[in-house]
């Protein structure tokens, strides 16, 4: 088995430490634009990186293959490519494949590049059927739904959370996603010289060793049109330069760019391992991505609730909240204590149709937001936003623990808006008794 950790983290440190510059921009109307502005913004934050990693994630760039998983793969050898392609033929329907267009590395100011290839694939129909049958066979209690039925309508009758979770997972999209995750993990940990660094639909990650503006130029990102771009410039302190080690980190269509060092890494990782996530790269960013995947995709928590798990309010604030809200936050903190991301961080998480910015709860790393018409900008500094959009409607420093969420077709949500007012009324009673008399 290939140990990615050995490549990413050659000195065997507890985790890979990197401090960085972040940038994200999104049109909430879904207007598509080139990567030129994101490159320009990153060039403005040149000094936040040290040339050992830069990358971009772009959404909406493959409309012609919108229903295919776009796998971006880097190969260190032709053998790795042959083995991977053989593996893909047996596990996927490959609709199209080609080299990822790029300029000559020598003239782009980036490090010598691996072979970069992309595949547009579908999950074969027979695989889907087999998996759903075998899953349903294991689950004696809830046979009435077919995989396509929305399970979420039926959970009133079911008390047991484990069964509900199984039922929710028993639908087509999740089966496909889980299948793709599994194959990606197999390639990444099983095949030497091959690494899948992007695996979502109608989106792609482009990253490598070099300054971000050079990486953007190398990948010809000015020729792509997406409605959402995130970008990252890296200042790693304990890793050797490796193309796969750059950000964004991605799983399916989730991407994470991250600036910070998570002090709670060991706790986070232990909890995620309990839920079947193998943290093979030993980076903080990886645990954030897995945590978001667990909470948002597998536990179906709304994004603003996810943010409250990662960066919860302090108990002194929770104790002052009105009763229903206090109970909600208490439930979150006592159920997901191990997913609190402690220590300094700023993250920009993106997925299809959504971009989320979040800072740690005591604001140890910077995040600035800006709005102009339908555009939402998130950045480590204000200057790069001004570079690409000099006449902003509004700009502000984001508060710790308060997510900024941009959604397609919606307005920008700042803070915690998802659960307000009378939606609390029917909360189940929680028997939390405080020894302190609260």
């Amino acid at each position, binding site marked *: 088995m290939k140990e990615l950790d050995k490549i990413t983290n050659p000195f*065997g440190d*507890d*985790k890979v*430490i990197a401090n960085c510059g972040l940038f994200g921009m999104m049109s909430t109307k879904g207007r598509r634009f080139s990567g030129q502005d994101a490159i320009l913004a990153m060039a403005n934050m040149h000094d936040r990186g040290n040339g050992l990693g830069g990358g971009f994630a772009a959404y909406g760039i493959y409309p012609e293959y919108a229903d295919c998983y776009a796998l971006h793969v880097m190969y260190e050898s032709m053998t790795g490519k042959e083995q991977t392609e053989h593996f893909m033929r047996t596990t996927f329907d490959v609709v199209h494949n080609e080299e990822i267009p790029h300029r000559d590395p020598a003239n782009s100011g980036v490090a010598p590049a691996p072979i970069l290839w992309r595949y547009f694939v579908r999950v074969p129909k027979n695989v889907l059927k087999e998996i759903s049958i075998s899953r349903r066979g294991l689950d004696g209690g809830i046979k009435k739904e077919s995989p396509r039925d929305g399970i*979420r309508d039926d*959970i009133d009758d079911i008390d047991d*959370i*484990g069964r*509900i*979770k199984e039922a929710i997972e028993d639908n087509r999209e999740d089966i496909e996603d889980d299948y793709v995750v599994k194959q990606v993990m197999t390639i990444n940990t099983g095949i030497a010289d091959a690494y899948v660094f992007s695996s979502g639909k109608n989106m792609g990650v482009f990253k490598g060793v070099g300054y971000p503006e050079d990486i953007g130029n190398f990948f010809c990102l000015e020729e792509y049109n997406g409605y959402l771009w995130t970008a990252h410039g890296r200042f790693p*302190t304990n890793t050797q330069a490796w193309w796969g080690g750059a950000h964004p980190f991605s799983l399916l269509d989730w991407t994470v760019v991250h600036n*910070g*060092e998570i*002090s*709670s*890494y*060991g*706790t986070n990782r*232990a*909890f995620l*391992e*309990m*839920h079947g996530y193998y943290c093979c790269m030993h980076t903080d960013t990886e645990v954030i991505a897995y945590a978001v995947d667990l909470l948002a995709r*597998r*536990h*179906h*928590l*709304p994004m603003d609730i996810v943010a409250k798990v990662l960066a919860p309010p*302090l*108990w*002194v604030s929770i104790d002052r909240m009105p009763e229903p809200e206090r109970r*909600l936050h208490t*439930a*979150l*903190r*006592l*159920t*997901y*204590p*191990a997913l*609190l991301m*402690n*220590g*300094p961080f700023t993250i920009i998480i993106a997925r299809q149709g959504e971009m989320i910015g979040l800072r740690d709860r*005591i604001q*140890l790393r910077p995040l600035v937001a800006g709005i102009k018409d339908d555009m939402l900008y998130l950045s480590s500094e204000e200057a790069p936003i001004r570079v690409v959009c000099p006449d902003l409607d509004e700009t502000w420093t984001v508060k710790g623990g308060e997510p900024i969420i941009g959604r397609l077709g919606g307005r920008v949500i700042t803070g915690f808006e998802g*659960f307000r007012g009378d*939606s*609390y009324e029917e*909360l*189940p009673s*929680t*028997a*939390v*008794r*405080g*020894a*302190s*008399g*609260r």
Partner: protein
Amino acid sequence: MKSYLLPQFAVHRDDDRCIRCKVCVSQCSFGVHAYDDEDDEIRSNEGACVGCQRCATLCPTGALVIRRHPHEFRPNANWSEEMLLDVKRKAETGAVTITGMGNDKPHRVYWDHLLLNASQVTNPSIDPLREPMELRTFLGRKPDGLLFKDGRLITDIPPQVMIETPIIFSAMSYGAISYQAQLAFMQAAQELGTLCNTGEGGWPMDFRRFGRNVIVQCASGRFGVDPDYLNQAAIVEIKIGQGAKPGIGGHLPGEKVTAAVAATRMIPEGTDALSPAPQHDIYSIEDLSMLIYALKEATNYEKPISVKIAAVHNAAAIASGMVRAGADIIAIDGFRGGTGAAPRVIRDNVGIPIELALAAIDERLRREGIRNRASILVAGGFRNSADIIKAIALGADAVYIGTAALVAMGCTLCQQCNTGKCAWGITAQDPYIAKRLNPDIATRRLVNLVRAWTLEIKEMLGGMGINSIESLRGNRLHLRGIGLQEWELEVLGVKGAGQ
């Protein structure tokens, strides 16, 4: 029979300093000091001295020095003085040697071989004097996840008990300790927003007002267990075993069963209070499950049920079974845990260190994917705040302190708890001796100790760049081993220093 036992301690009295105030005479409950009227002299029977230092502490002129007796046997690497004396003692009595407190053998203390981390440059340390530092902890079963429907949380949260510091006072029964000592524990737990444990000796009626801060035990003797006992408490704990005497029951001699103790334990006055070695309705894991659910029924599923075991060789597998049997909390007592009375040979030779048991149990529950279903409490020889924070990094939710709390009240670990003569009034039942422990002063000392440790824990957490204890729980990356062998590092799940 002439005793061949030599005195263990020598009493040195500076006659120039002694003012014949007779404090030592009245304070020594072991009858060491006696005043001779005719000679105006205080004489000492050194053979009775247990080295508790009560007289030396209270002597107003500092005239007394109690030190190890200087007599020496011929040196022998195989036969220490302690072994010689134990053989002689048995030859004279034909009885099992009974002792108090925890294992005093020089086994490796793993806490002293674990080092903590701190932040430098790449992430900032946090100053607890300027920023919030959260130690709030919830004890009880946690849900596997939360479900929302139409913006509403629809998951039921199992009963939880919230404590403001991860330090709890360990189980010590009324009978083993005095009424005054137990009152001090309850007052201190209330003031600190934490818990204390009644032990298995029942719960005096006038202490039930502290219910929010009390864990009651349901042990093999079932002393004092009735519906009110169970329902007034915050947590009910099934006691299977104790670190100081795994596999052994308890025996409170009839002399200590006063009218008040008898009423609390619901037994006749002056009779021996016997706790059988096993619980006679638990001969297997499914029996345990039945008792857990019987207690949940009795308390209307409103209280977490804890199960306490001694740390033994296969503790990890047992703990896993306990969680699956329905325990909301599992309490593990290591082999350095104290006792009011235990056979010395058991105390010193049975069980394993809490550090290793905790690491193995946390690891096992994680690998089985059930760590969230129970909180882990650990006990057995926690001496300072560093021990506690290391336990949390190894995976504990909170820590029971017993011996340290007794030391705060005055205990000097003279190991005479079983005799009922405790000169500090902590484990005495004789009202004359017990009264010397002022419950309010003892409360203040306990509160001060826990407050000081809590502040120290916050300092260490902040140094690691962590502002909430939940981010350290099971975070073994913040620990490094020093002076440990490969297998020990593996069991503890930590790297060596410098790695």
